[in-house]
């Protein structure tokens, strides 16, 4: 079953790439006489044509983070079938379409950002909504990820040591890469060896600290990380992480292909398993709040319209980069499903009665299964390690640390880089303040304030330890971003391409809009009050964010309507 699923996933992705993807490319996007921005506007600085493989590497590395791993782990509460279905269907019909079309719309718009295009096609409100969604996304992602990381460090103590040692490895690698005369491959090799040592160090000297101690450490870490030059720590560590990703994926695929094991966990538990905040959660519309990245992520529209669209060497490469890398990310999520589906129970060890049948499994999966394994990341890494160690005979403990570190390292990269993003948004959002009150404007746009505010709110949220509440909120913001992008490309198809094909983007867009809006309303009404009760401060914060997002979301819908209407006249 496990092997089958992998092969099946590969075939689906390949088939859709060559049929649906090519259809999107040929029919909807079509061809144009105008050259791509990288050539027409080649300026040797931002606009430079890049080889498709190089660009793919860049694009994929930017979109692959901890997201496609954590989401599927939680979604397994509904059973592996609903989870994998959303990963596959969501990916090929919505996510990859979203990524590909936002890349192409940006290419046709001289490489401008999706936010710019949204403003151009939908009006100013869309542009502003976009900014606010990103700001919320940043705060929530810090909250969710900090909680997940601290959880992982507690339940897999070796991963924290490994992580700290990796920092040292990165510091050394930084000197080798950027200052020494050693050839690139040699510095990299030394870096990889040091990375291996740090994992081994994690195996030898686990650090035991409490959850809240880690949260405090993370807070200071975020602030310090933003102050030191990137080439000292951030860049070399980010670079090392890429090897963790390659290694993790490669080993995962090989092991999963060899595993030939049946799934131990139920295919389907119930339509409303207990997922978010321990409450029974309806699969529809809540699923996009659980599995975002891996099926669909609005954040990718920003990546696509950032560097990728400015460096695309020919329009033909667009499908490979936009559609292709999203499929690869879906594949990563598939590996997660297979690891836990087939090896989760083995990793867990005991078959507790709380998980005895499908119904009970749906009810108790998060608390008994994920919880007993030590949280979302630990659940994945232990299952994954079980799979790899039994197939490839690599030490189990070693693999647990590698996998935990892989996910935690990516989550941490997110933490220390989001405050850079936050800084831009805070500056952007404060713009109108400049006229009203220059002192306030100066306050908010101060380098430190602008990066501490989101970090502070994020960490405040993480303090509650409730990542199953925070994760959906983060995903929600992410999905709303995606729905702006999808609506934008729909209007683009309608106005600038062929009206006939409008529905290929509009249907997923509207479907997503309805689903996410429904899910967020459900979340605000049923989940937020409980959160307020246990943690008033944080509960209110999340509640306010939700309400603002919902309002903006409706504003967006009206923008779209009037934009279609205008075209009609």
């Amino acid at each position, binding site marked *: 079953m496990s092997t089958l699923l992998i092969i099946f996933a590969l075939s689906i992705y390949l088939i859709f790439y060559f049929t649906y993807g090519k259809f999107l490319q040929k029919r909807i996007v079509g061809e144009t006489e105008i050259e791509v921005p990288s050539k027409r506007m*080649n*300026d*040797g600085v931002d606009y430079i044509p890049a080889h498709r493989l190089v660009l793919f590497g860049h694009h994929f590395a930017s979109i692959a983070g901890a997201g496609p791993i954590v989401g599927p782990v939680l979604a397994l509460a509904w059973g592996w079938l609903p989870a994998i279905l959303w990963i596959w269907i969501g990916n090929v019909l919505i996510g990859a379409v979203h990524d590909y079309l936002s890349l192409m719309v940006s290419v046709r718009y001289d490489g401008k950002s999706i936010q710019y295009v949204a403003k151009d096609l939908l009006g100013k409100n869309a542009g502003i909504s976009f900014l606010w969604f990103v700001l919320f996304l940043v705060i929530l992602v810090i909250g969710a990820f900090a909680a997940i990381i601290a959880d992982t460090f507690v339940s897999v103590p070796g991963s924290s040591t490994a992580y700290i040692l990796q920092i040292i490895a990165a510091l050394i690698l930084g000197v080798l*890469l*950027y*200052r*020494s005369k050693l050839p*690139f491959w040699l510095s990299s090799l030394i870096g990889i060896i040091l990375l291996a040592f740090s994992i081994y160090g994690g195996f030898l000297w686990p650090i035991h600290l409490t959850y809240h101690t880690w949260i405090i450490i993370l807070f200071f870490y975020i602030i310090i990380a933003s102050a030191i030059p990137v*080439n000292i720590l951030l860049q070399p560590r980010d670079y090392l992480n890429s090897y963790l990703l390659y290694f993790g994926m490669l080993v995962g695929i090989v092991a999963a292909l060899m595993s030939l094991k049946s799934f131990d966990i139920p295919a389907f538990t119930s339509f409303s398993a207990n997922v978010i905040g321990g409450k029974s959660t309806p699969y529809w519309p809540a699923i996009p709040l659980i599995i975002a990245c891996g099926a669909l992520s609005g954040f990718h529209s920003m990546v696509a319209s950032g560097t990728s669209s400015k460096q695309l060497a020919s329009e033909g490469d667009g499908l490979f980069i936009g559609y292709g890398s999203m499929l690869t990310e879906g594949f990563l999520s598939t590996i997660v499903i297979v690891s836990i589906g087939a090896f989760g129970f083995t990793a867990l060890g005991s078959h507790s009665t709380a998980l005895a049948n499908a119904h009970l499994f749906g009810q108790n999966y998060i608390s008994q299964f994920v919880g007993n394994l030590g949280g979302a990341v630990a659940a994945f890494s232990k299952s994954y390690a079980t799979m790899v160690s039994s197939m490839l005979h690599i030490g189990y403990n070693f693999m647990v640390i590698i996998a935990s570190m892989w996910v935690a390292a990516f989550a941490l990269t997110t933490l220390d880089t989001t405050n850079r993003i936050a800084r831009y948004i805070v500056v952007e959002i404060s713009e109108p303040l400049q006229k009203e009150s220059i002192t306030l404007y100066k306050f908010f746009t101060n380098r430190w304030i602008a990066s501490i505010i989101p970090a502070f709110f994020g960490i405040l949220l993480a303090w509650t330890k409730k990542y199953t509440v925070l994760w959906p909120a983060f995903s929600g913001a992410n999905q709303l971003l995606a729905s702006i992008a999808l609506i934008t490309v729909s209007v683009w198809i309608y106005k600038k391409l062929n009206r006939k094909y409008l529905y290929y983007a509009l249907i997923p867009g509207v479907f997503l809009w309805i689903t996410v809006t429904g899910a967020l309303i459900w979340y605000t009404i049923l989940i937020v009050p409980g959160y307020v009760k246990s943690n008033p401060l944080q509960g209110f914060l999340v509640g306010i964010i939700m309400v603002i997002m919902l309002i903006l979301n409706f504003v967006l819908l009206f923008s779209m309507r009037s934009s279609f209407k205008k075209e009609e006249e």
Partner: protein
Amino acid sequence: MKYIFFMGKGGVGKSTLSSLIAYKLAKRGEKTVLISLDFAHNLGDIFNMKIGNKGVRLEEHLDIFEPDIDRWVEEYLRNTRVLIKENYKYVSVFNLDNMLNLMKNSPGIEEYAILHLLYEKTKALADMDYLVVDMPPTALALRIFALPFITREWLKTLLKLRKEILVKRERIANVHGKEKFDFAVDEHEDKVYRNLKEQEEENAFLLKLIQGANIIPVTLPVQLSFKETERILKKLSEFKLNVPFVIVNRVKNDEWKKGCVCIEDKEVKTFDDFEREIKFQDFDNIDSEILQL
């Protein structure tokens, strides 16, 4: 070389006095250069001859120059445009033309032109004993004195930022190899850095020149002119520049003669009249002080 700058409100007698001093210094055998940095040159009128950019040698030891500032600015902008054309691969010069036109009229360019001309002349005439400068009217003169100080701060900031850029480029080039990028990596290659360094050198020279110079404000014995002189003194002392004394020109009343350096109001028409009428003795105290400088 010693530098003497005459400054003051329009019409107070800067040109007359600087000519006179230069002339008398030359007569004493000091190798002297007299240069007008005013747009409206009037040394030519005083000496009754055409002087111009190239200059005139009057007497054995006196050289006089009236550089054409406007023409220099024009030429400078033209050169900049040519340089841009030579150096730019992607951006067309026409895109920048608008901006260059704007800059022609933007404040600051004249001050720089004047300073740069001063720099060139001083460099070329390094073996002279005295350089006497007839400055333009107060406001512009003060801006000219201030410019090297402002420029120094900006250059400092820019050089620091540029170094940061070069360090980052070096890090990247260390991984990718220098060939991959068409940006310069080290300080000698980077034209921007080199240019900043050159500017810094020129500016340091000018700064030293100004800081070592004697600046002599000229005023008329009237309230309005005094008020202005007070402002001048205050500004100059902010920059810690040397002001050995102030000259009160065209004094009619004897009581003035007591406490200050002053020149009588003479019924004169030509420079020769002056030469005759205002003897070096009239400068008595000035004379001795200036020559001591």
